[in-house]
């Protein structure tokens, strides 16, 4: 952006603050029909995003497997990643801490969490989707070096955590196809919010 354009923009920004009438009657009611009617179809503010720009930060990996990165990793490879990068905080077998417990099943895959406090939630007893392991570890782990693992390493450590939770066999390999296909023990436990205000406490 040229210097001239920049200062012009600064002036306009200030002007728009100065002219916006305070809306006293209605919280957040600025998009009232009368105002919107004067709006152009587009303000022509902002830049078109290129597909490269999008790809650079489009990192989510949901249960549908859409956008899953290429790569793969085995349980054995995952054990190596886990032992060197994760066990210091999550324990030698994923149960010892000091941070979140990652491993643990409950007999008959019961779901006693609402009945009483105390049962630790783990990936094996609580998480509804296996893709969340990749999505989350890829974003945020290891805590002190987030984003430092390769896609292969994240697939591998996901495979290993699933193996420790007795959800996949020791020869499992996780990739863009196999990870979304894993069915988690708690998948059917999740229900949509049914609270809706009114007299009934839910």
């Amino acid at each position, binding site marked *: 952006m040229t210097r001239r354009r920049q200062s012009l*923009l600064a002036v306009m*920004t200030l002007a*728009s*603050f100065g002219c*916006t009438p305070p*809306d006293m009657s209605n*919280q*957040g009611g*600025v*998009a009232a029909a009368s*105002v919107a009617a004067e*709006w152009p179809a*587009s*303000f022509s*503010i*902002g*830049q*078109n*995003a290129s597909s490269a*720009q*999008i790809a650079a*930060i*489009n*990192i*989510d990996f*949901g249960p549908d497997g859409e956008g899953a990165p290429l790569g793969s990793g085995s349980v054995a490879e995952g054990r190596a990643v886990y032992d060197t990068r994760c066990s210091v905080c999550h324990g030698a077998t994923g149960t010892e801490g000091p941070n979140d417990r990652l491993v643990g099943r409950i007999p008959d895959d019961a*779901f*006693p*969490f*609402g*009945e*009483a*406090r105390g*049962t630790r*939630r783990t990936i094996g007893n*609580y*998480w*509804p*989707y296996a*893709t*969340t392991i990749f*999505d*989350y570890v890829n*974003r*945020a782990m290891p*805590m002190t070096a*987030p*984003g430092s693992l390769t896609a292969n390493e994240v697939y591998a450590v996901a495979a290993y955590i699933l193996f420790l939770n007795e959800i996949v066999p020791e020869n499992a390999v996780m990739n863009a196809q196999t990870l979304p296909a894993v069915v988690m023990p708690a998948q059917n*436990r*999740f*229900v*949509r*919010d*049914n*609270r*809706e*205000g009114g*007299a009934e*406490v*839910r």
Partner: protein
Amino acid sequence: MGKISRRTMLGATGGLIAGGLLKTQADALTVAPETAGPQVAQADPTKILGAPTSQLGERAPGEQPRRVMGNPAVAASSRTPLEQLRGIITPADLHFERHHAGVPAIDPDRYELLIHGMVDRPMTFSLADLKRFPAESRIGFVECSGNGGAAYSRNAAQDRSPSQIDGLLSTSEWTGVALSTLLREVGLSSDATWLLAEGGDAAVMSRSIPVEKALDDAMIAYGQNGEAIRPAQGYPARLHLPGWEGNAQVKWIRRLEASDRPSMTREETSKYTDPLADGTARQFSLVMDAKSTITFPTFPYQLPDTGWWEIRGLAWSGRGRITRVDITTDGGNTWVPAQLQDTVLSKCATRFRHIWNWDGDPALLMSRATDETGYVQPDLETLMAARGPGTSYHYNSIRPWRVESDGRVFFGPRDGA
């Protein structure tokens, strides 16, 4: 602070010159207030020239509220000192903090918000772009959905203050661009039902937000109480979802992806889901139900005297306006309506007050909020019956405060319970 600092002196001189005084007079004046200074209370302030103007204001020396925190080395949250504040607005530097991987340092000149997915035109918006769009301001609360966990127990600790129980609640005037304005600009597909909101912190925090909310009253906020959003609240820009749980109001927002299904991120599966007694877990429980708490008198105060005291507190609902707050001083046998401070705003903290003549007997004080949907804040047993004693998040039961005959106040209904 006996000696006037060089900096203060220069400031004084500048101010007086600007005020039209001759330089010689100004110079003479600056030597006068040897003992004056903002830190020293004067026996008779009318007999000594006061402190000069300054570029940045300071709190009175004796008024230094602080956020309430545990061990800073491990704490991922700090709490608003509710019992030390008045009115409804939280000073920005006392807004509660909850973050999952620290507060990122983001260069505002390099900041961009990307909106893509099921849209006609994927676009990025710089901070200047966001500020150039038609703006809006609204006063609203932000509350962590884990707030109040310390109260969700039949034998909760009693030496707890309102901030230790409910301090993950703050109220600000948020200024920004309506998210609907941005979605209009990129041409949101009518088939899109969810938006993945993602932050630019080291947790790359991500939450799926229903499009319905995004088009209703969601905002990309860059202003907080008249100034730029503080780093801990999402500088340079965050998602504000009036009345919804704090975690979904993604701070440091860098990306919004329109889609037709939720992404099932860790914070909407492993965390921020509410296990129920029937063996299910409630997911996308985003709205904060009506809630209230007394903020005075409460632990750690001790009423020094019997007689007239004003019971004060806050009520709020994520579903709209608070329509009434009832107060009991006899453990729930009789309830009377508290006075609500005008103007009651939707999805905003509301200040309530009730004047009370304490006779010196032990008393059990409670507040009970009702919102415009007719929802009444439940007591602990009602909430536990509805959700189960083990549930997590959305702990909005009535908060009991017990005044003992010596004036000390404790949390919880029973002595030694």
